[in-house]
């Protein structure tokens, strides 16, 4: 069994999910898959660097992964509280509508002046 191919397949699935899924929770799951694919590569380091050093690198990679998870989850909660949705398409539409409204208000104020 080859850990490099396994991590490549996981990476491909994660990138596919990142590109195609619109829900923020699915985006988070995709990021987790990509992080798992990256950490699996450290298993390959174990024979070449020695078991201890390979495991130490893996543990350090986990802590980075945990930080990323924390930030994404905070973003997910904030976005859902502010906009009431976690769909990226809806968020983009809302932002565009907001910009259009602002532009309209600016245009109206210019006409009045």
């Amino acid at each position: 069994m080859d850990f490099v191919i396994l991590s490549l397949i996981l990476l491909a699935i994660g990138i596919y999910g990142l590109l195609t899924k619109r829900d923020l929770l699915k985006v988070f799951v995709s990021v987790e898959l990509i992080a798992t694919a990256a950490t699996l590569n450290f298993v390959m380091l174990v024979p070449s660097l020695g078991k201890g050093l390979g495991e130490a690198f893996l543990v350090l990679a986990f802590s980075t992964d945990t930080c990323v998870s924390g930030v994404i989850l905070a973003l997910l909660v904030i976005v859902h509280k502010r906009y009431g949705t976690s769909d990226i398409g809806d968020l983009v539409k809302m932002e565009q509508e907001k910009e259009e409204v602002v532009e309209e208000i600016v245009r109206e104020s210019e006409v009045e002046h």
Partner: protein
Amino acid sequence: MILEILSAGLIISACLAIFLDEAVYSVAALAGMFFSTSLLYAFSDAIFVAVFQFAVGAGTLAILFLSGEMLSQKPAKTSQRNLLLITVAGIILSLPAIFLSISEMPVALSGISFGEALWDMRAVDVVLQGFVIMTVALGVVIVLHEKRKGEK
């Protein structure tokens, strides 16, 4: 043989986590993936890493289950046919990892223990990462607290 079965389970649960529509089922599949990865590490003689993966996975999943249940809308359920298709796709995707081999396992250069490697060779990294984790935790708390203040 056990590693091959675990890697197949890993790919299938990864596919299910991405393609299942309902958030809770998706998180449950992610739990399966974390569990498979943890076992994969354990059977590769990396017990410390397996324990770390298990702990990190358990924490992440607990929060994800809560947020998945609270924040996401309920979509239409995935049909049995789609579920079967995703599983078959996962099995097919796991075949290259089981049967192909592009990397050769190099010979071990050093036989230092995990504790020595972590505290003697990577001590600065460990301390710095502790600071990074603390900073991220504080940042998340501050951002969520400001949001709550703004709501009032």
